[in-house]
């Protein structure tokens, strides 16, 4: 037999990538802008999970991957991690957020008011099939309220704390480089508070929902009451090397506070993320609420839910099972065959 090298691998992987990209067609800036304009909530979700706030890059990642969400987030994360960190923005206080939507299920009315804002919550979920028939859907104009809602509100938990219903966590004075950064340090348990909130902020929406829902259905001890759900914009305040503080722009953020009765006080769960993503924030805050004292290995234990809602890791590991495993498999077969060949001695009665 002559020497036949099997070096088909490199060519095969190149062609398989081409096959995928060819089906996607040409990508230009116009297509990316269209994705950005048409799918803001998807762009938000991807920005949150990538922990990178840039609508153009997120839209590009979505376009380039054909909407394969895990791929889109991975592309963004891999890009993000190589970027230099120029500075750390000032902490955002809740009452400085520019609120678009803010609701509380705990009280009929709250200081600062209930602000319904943009939502599909009360819409009838009817598919607009007319659009496909050639009749464009042109949404009716919004009629502004006579009295605009205030742009800034206090948090509901601030009122509860003033009434001795809840103990707010102590203010964390860490600022700038002193803030623990999950992307620059390994996650260890018990996790630092900053790491927990950062992990939840970039967790995969579906994963957080699955485990959060498990907690809501009864695998957690605490049933959440949505104290406050907020969609807002936050000013990103940074310091110029010459000392001037200025706003580098605004980012869309969402946050949720959930509470539950624990003894004579309310337990508090919190989560926030880049972009507007209500399901993720409520689920993540529910997990946070349930994590205190959760049994090891339960879905509401911090180590359990933080590890398993990390979408880039989870999806990567899942698809790695497509890789050849024949060496490992061969090793198991060897042990199995040998065990089978040997009669097992029955234990004496």
């Amino acid at each position, binding site marked *: *037999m002559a020497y036949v090298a099997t070096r088909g*691998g*490199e060519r095969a992987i190149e062609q398989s990538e081409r096959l995928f990209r060819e089906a996607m067609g040409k990508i230009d800036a116009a297509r990316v802008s269209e994705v950005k304009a048409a799918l803001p909530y998807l762009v938000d979700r991807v920005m949150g999970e990538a922990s990178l706030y840039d609508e153009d890059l997120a839209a590009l990642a979505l376009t380039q991957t054909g909407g394969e969400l895990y791929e889109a987030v991975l592309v963004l994360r891999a890009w993000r991690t190589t970027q230099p960190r120029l500075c750390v923005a000032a902490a955002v206080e809740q009452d400085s957020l520019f609120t678009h939507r803010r609701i509380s299920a705990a009280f009929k009315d709250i200081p600062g008011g209930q602000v319904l804002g943009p939502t599909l919550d009360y819409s009838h979920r009817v598919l607009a099939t007319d659009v496909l028939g050639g009749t464009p859907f042109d949404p009716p104009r919004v009629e502004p309220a006579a009295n605009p809602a205030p742009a800034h509100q206090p948090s509901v938990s601030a009122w509860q704390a003033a009434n001795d219903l809840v103990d707010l966590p102590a203010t964390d004075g860490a600022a700038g480089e002193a803030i623990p950064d999950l992307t*620059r340090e390994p996650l260890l348990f018990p996790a630092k508070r900053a790491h927990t909130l950062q992990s939840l902020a970039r967790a995969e929406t579906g994963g957080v929902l699955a485990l959060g829902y498990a907690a809501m259905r009864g695998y957690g001890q605490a049933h959440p009451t949505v104290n406050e759900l907020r969609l807002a914009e936050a000013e990103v305040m940074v310091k110029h090397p010459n000392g001037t503080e200025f706003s580098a722009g605004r980012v869309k953020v969402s946050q949720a506070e959930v509470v539950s009765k624990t003894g004579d006080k309310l337990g508090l769960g919190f989560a926030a993320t880049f972009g507007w993503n209500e399901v993720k924030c409520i689920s993540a805050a529910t997990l946070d609420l349930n994590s205190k004292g959760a049994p090891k290995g339960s879905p509401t234990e911090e180590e359990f839910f933080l590890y398993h809602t990390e979408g880039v890791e989870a999806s*990567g*590991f899942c698809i790695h099972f497509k890789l050849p495993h024949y*060496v*490992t498999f061969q*090793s198991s077969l060897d*042990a199995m065959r040998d065990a089978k060949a040997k009669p097992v001695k029955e234990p004496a009665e």
Partner: protein
Amino acid sequence: MSLANLTKPWAPMSYGFLDASAKRELRRKMIKSVCVPGCQMPYASREVPMARGWGTGGLQVSLTLINPQITVKVIDQGADDSVNAASIRRFLARVSGAPTTLDTLKADLIQSRHRIPEEVLREDQVLVLQVPNPEPLRSVQPNMSIARQMHGDADYGRMWLQLYEQIVRSGRVMQGASYPSMVNGRHVMTPSPIPRWDVPKLHMAKHLTILSAGREKRIFAVPPFTRVEPLVFDDVPYRVEDHAGLTCSRSGAKGFFMNEIPQSDGTSTYEVSDSEYGVKSIRQRDGETLTMGETWYKDGEMPQ
């Protein structure tokens, strides 16, 4: 002095893809892991342009160690031409300009998924093993923080119990690949899912082995000339796969770890798993003069 003099020209990415702070983190944790052989060191594992679970841990180590003078070899399940090995090799070459090779003897740095080459590695070579699950205790303790404490206490009782139960139930230790091994008499580590055939190659080896799990963010090492002893009972010896008597149907090489190839008539043929060793054997058989390295196993036996 102008600003241009103080800065480097713009480049889309750093040399070797990872930025300086990521490389520093890797170097610090590699040194730490060499200092405490077999002990898992948590590290800030960065995202790389490859999916988690596809060798991102090994890749970060390779990207940190690489330079244009280093020759790189990448293998997956023993094969250089496996699709993922090809992809990693292409990426390493693309971001570093380092030359690549398929020949174990010519490589300075070998990144491997689940095999150690059959030819003996030298003092000047570094082996980087990709690790899916760095925790040998995972099967008895899935909680990482508790497992970490168990390592701290050298509390390996449940590990031994598991092996004992396998012997009682099945008449032998059923562990296939990733055989738990004691390193330097202190830390139990998983050698990564290399077959049992390869574990003795780590014991008192001349080369440095770095094991890196990118998804799980743990790095550990077997420094040169370090004891790596599979966990076995005194009266139940360690057994590698029963491949000593098998012959490669393509190269005629005998006494190495094989891939079993099922045939349509219900039988199997075998191919040597270390693909480049197989290729070299064929070329030598066909009359080419080339250097075959010394192998760890001789006639299917690993000398003690």
